[in-house]
């Protein structure tokens, strides 16, 4: 009996030890220790900031790690603590902290009003500091400013925009004797020519939500731009509504027709809804497709699969004039300062540091994007050469997602486009469903 008790006690102790190890492991995942810089980077101290500063962001972001390291080196009196989470837990975790008044000082947030951690939602709920008077806020790109503002107040710094488009294997293009098409009919002819040679021009991973509707959304943007270059600004400012905007509705209708034409012309592989983003990247890497439709932020994964491939970018044409080509870019993310921050001076200083033109340019380079504020001197990554010209000409439109009035629109257009690709929906059906979703619940 005594022996039994001993064994039980050992078992209990072992259980506690295992639980403690597991708890510590998870705690380690949620929050890493202080990231006070140990860098040898010769950045001199720029201020006398001190105290604690907590910064929360999505894990796997080496550029932000580097930013904190450098900012820490500039401010040796500051103890910086980073809280990193994966995308599936970040929103719930940080929102709960903000709700209880215990949130981080500087927060990675989303632009627009698409989720509970978006700038306009948090700003409207009084969870973020008004940053309208910060130096970068005055020179911020108007479209980007719309996405992080509410009632004239700026709640976030948004730095990088990532273009969407056709990323292709340059050598494969040369081998097939083709060049990136600049007109819609040229695109269809290229698709047919490539198909005849047993390949596909665009490997499409329509199983992944954003890729199912990315092409029609980009084509609609291009068509709408030719009708009214300011259509998105008007919608963003509320001068027009998505439901009533004839420019948008007619453009989406034409874009969906073009999408169907592309399907019929064999621009994509068969059964596109069975392929994920990762699967189509493998198709390109293995030479089964000339290129794929992607957001530039997805390039590192493609690069990892094909380290030696010469990659370039082309925007998909929607009209018959090469001069109508515009770049569609993702509005992406932003940085805000918590209203409950106990060290607002340091938090604002960090955001201001992130907003300097030098840091924005480096951020863009690290994330295969472009700074929001058009910068003609920006160094364009080799993979984005085809996008650089349009960017420097200022021919950039935001991807409409962040300006949509509610997040249901995105989910609706994903589902409807997948049905369209499977032949289970008509263009009219997609249009009606999208139109209905603008009304929200």
């Amino acid at each position, binding site marked *: 009996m005594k022996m039994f008790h001993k064994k039980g006690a050992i078992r209990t102790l072992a259980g506690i030890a295992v639980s403690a190890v597991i708890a510590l492991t998870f705690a380690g995942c949620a929050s890493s220790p202080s990231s006070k810089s140990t860098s040898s980077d010769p950045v001199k101290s720029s201020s006398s900031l001190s105290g604690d500063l907590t910064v929360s962001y999505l894990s796997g972001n080496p550029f932000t790690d580097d930013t904190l390291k450098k900012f820490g080196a500039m401010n040796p009196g500051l103890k910086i603590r980073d809280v990193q989470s994966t995308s599936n837990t970040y*929103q*719930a975790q940080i*929102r709960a902290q*903000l*709700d209880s008044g215990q949130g981080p000082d500087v927060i990675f947030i989303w632009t627009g009003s698409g*989720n*509970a951690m978006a700038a306009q*939602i*948090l700003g409207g*709920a009084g*969870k973020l500091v008004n940053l309208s008077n910060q130096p970068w806020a005055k020179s911020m790109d108007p479209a980007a400013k719309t996405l992080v503002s509410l009632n004239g107040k700026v709640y976030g710094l948004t730095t990088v925009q990532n273009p969407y488009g056709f990323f292709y294997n340059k050598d494969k293009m040369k081998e097939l004797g083709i060049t990136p098409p600049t007109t819609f009919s040229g695109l269809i002819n290229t698709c047919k020519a490539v198909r005849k040679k047993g390949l596909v021009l665009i490997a499409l991973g*329509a*199983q*992944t*939500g954003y890729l*199912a509707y990315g092409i029609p959304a980009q084509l609609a943007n291009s068509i709408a731009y030719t009708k009214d270059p300011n259509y998105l600004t008007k919608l963003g400012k509320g001068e027009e509504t998505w439901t009533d905007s004839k420019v948008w509705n007619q453009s989406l209708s034409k874009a969906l027709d073009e999408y169907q034409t592309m399907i019929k012309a064999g621009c994509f*592989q*068969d*059964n*596109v*809804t*069975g*392929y*994920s983003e990762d*699967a189509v990247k493998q198709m390109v890497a293995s030479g089964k497709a000339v290129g794929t439709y992607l957001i530039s932020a997805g390039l590192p994964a493609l690069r990892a699969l094909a380290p030696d491939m010469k990659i370039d970018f082309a925007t998909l044409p929607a009209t018959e004039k090469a001069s109508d080509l515009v770049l569609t870019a993702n509005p992406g993310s932003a940085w805000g300062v918590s209203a409950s921050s106990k060290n607002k001076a340091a938090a604002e200083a960090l955001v201001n540091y992130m907003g300097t033109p030098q840091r924005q340019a480096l951020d863009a380079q690290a994330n295969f994007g472009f700074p929001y504020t058009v910068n003609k001197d920006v160094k364009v990554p080799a993979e984005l050469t085809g996008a650089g010209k349009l960017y420097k000409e200022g021919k950039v439109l935001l991807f409409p997602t962040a300006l949509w009035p*509610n*997040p*249901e629109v*995105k*989910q609706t257009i*994903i*589902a*409807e486009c*997948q*049905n369209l*690709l*499977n032949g*289970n*929906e008509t263009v009219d059906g997609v249009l009606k469903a999208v139109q209905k979703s603008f009304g929200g*619940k």
Partner: protein
Amino acid sequence: MTTLTQAPPTPPAQRTATRPVRAKGFGTPPWFAVPAFAFFTAIVAIPTVLGVYYAFTNWDGISAAPVFVGLDNFIQLFKTPETIQALGNTLLMALVITVAQNAIGLALAAGVNSRIKSRNVLRTFLFAPVVMTPIIVGYLWQFLFIPNGPIARLAEVVGIHNLNVLGDPATAIWGVMVVVIWQHAGYSMVIFLAGMQGIPEEINEAAALDGAGVWKRFVHVTWPLLRTPLVINITLSLIMSFKLFDQVMATTQGGPGYSTQTLSTLLYFEAFQFNHFSSGIALGVIVFVLTAVISFAQMRLFRDRNAA
């Protein structure tokens, strides 16, 4: 041959011998339970009750003062075709997964409950998928199911062309079910195996002496004595099926269209994508009630049969 309908009675003397003897005057005082009760109340009971309350409000996940809206969230949910489709998908998945997972688990248990030399290796091998992360399993099968992938090529051999399991709305839900069943059949196997190993060898030997073959021994001896593991397995697989989320998100994200949307994935979209926290919680309440009612009903059914 007589079919056994309940476990052979345990000799009363043995039962008395193993029962712990409680010394008079040394019973556990009720207040010993106070810390555990307080902990449970604070961590489980109060948040659960508050959570259910939020299903009847317009809480958006941020505002501190939600307004009571009665049954509005539930009415609104059942007005949308996506909820009806998600409910249908969840019920279909619960039925198919529960039946298939347990049938396969039972067959595997019968197979490894033998005296073959490699039985321990086989048990480990068959249980291995259970310990894998559902997301990893989902990604693995996503690649196996890819058009022109390994399964599509195998299908070509038997004359099925152009197979697009996860990309076709007609087959996607069955693809997800295959993933779930593959992962969890080993779990059912272990529970059935434990039940089988608890059956006294003498009963099987006696049946064999009476001339019963392997199949007859299984049907008339083993199966009737597996009622308890069966109830446990059905309850667990029902609960798991009603909460199905990870594998769906990893393979199809509820698509193509809404063809693989379940109540749990819809809950995620409502709460975390659309900011309709109260609707998300209302869906959680629906899942809870469905699981509780069906689990209770099946346990009641089995208890009545046992009593009969």
